[in-house]
Every structure is written in C-alpha cells, then in structure tokens.
C-alpha cells in the first residue's frame, strides 16, 4: 500500500492517534483471521474425511471442526505452560 508522504504530512496529531489505534486493531483482526485460515485448513483435513455430497457440514463434522479448534487452543496453552516451566526452572 502506498500513501504519499505529502498526504501523511496533512494528518494532525488527533488523526495520527486514531490511525494508530485503527492499525493496531486491524493488525489483531488480521492475526485472528490468519489463524482461522490455518486452523480451517488443518481441521478440514482431520474432520472432512468422507466424500463430499452436500454443500453443508453435517452435525458430526461441525462438532469435529469446533472440537478441533478447542483442542488446538488446549495444545497451545499446554505448550506455553511447559515452555514457561522450562525457562523458569532451567530443566
């Protein structure tokens, strides 16, 4: 994305602060969306194993996708806790 420096020079302090807030929120939204893409990809491969016959998820597939996300988050948490323990305890 290219914004001419001349345009940026026209921003007053209030607008700059508002833009910083916007960019920081937008960055977080993008990060969440990025992980949603990665998780949908990974969980699709685990959960959608039978031939596709409709345009909808059946009940068990939807439950599997949702469980997949929850367990991924559990794994993340377990890793974080363990690494914290490792770095704190030195073993």
């Amino acid at each position: 994305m290219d914004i001419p420096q001349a345009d940026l020079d026209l921003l007053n302090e209030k607008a700059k602060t508002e833009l910083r807030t916007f960019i920081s929120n937008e960055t977080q939204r993008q990060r969440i969306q990025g992980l949603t893409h990665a998780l949908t990809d990974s969980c699709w491969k685990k959960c959608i194993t039978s031939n596709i016959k409709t345009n909808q998820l059946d009940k068990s597939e939807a439950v599997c996708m949702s469980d997949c996300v929850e367990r991924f988050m559990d794994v993340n948490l377990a890793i974080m806790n363990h690494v914290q323990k490792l770095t704190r305890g030195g073993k």
Partner: protein
Amino acid sequence: MSSDSTSETVKQSIIKQVLIESQQANARTLMEKIGENCFASCVPKPGSSLSSREKTCVTQCTEKYMAAWNVVNSTYLRRIQQEMGNQ
C-alpha cells in the same frame, strides 16, 4: 479548521484503503485454501477432463469449506474471549 477537515479526509481514505486491502488478502487466502482442499477432496485421481461429478463436488466443497471457516472463526473467537475473561 480547513486543515482539520483535510486531516480527517486523509485519515478516512487511509482507513478505507487498509480495509479494502485486508479484505482482498482475506479473500485471496480463502480462495487458495479452498482450491487446495477441494482439489484434494474432489479430484483424487485427475483424469483427462473434469467430470460432472467432480464439478458438482467442487461447488459443494466450496460452500462447505466456507461453512467450516465460519465454524472455526466463531469457535476461535469464543475461546479467545473466554480466555481473556479468565485472566
């Protein structure tokens, strides 16, 4: 006063441009992922042309993948909110 409104105009145009580009990036990634996964699901053994069965599978798969994306997104958001509440 007029410099304030110029500033506001520039700000709004930057916000608009960022939103457009982020939506485009999101759509591009989704299309790539649908392509990869539905190709894998619907065309396990590529033949000399796409059969009508494979074509039907691809359109169904596309919609199904979007439904899966929505399930993942809402589960993920719920979980993030829950974890933020626990802190």
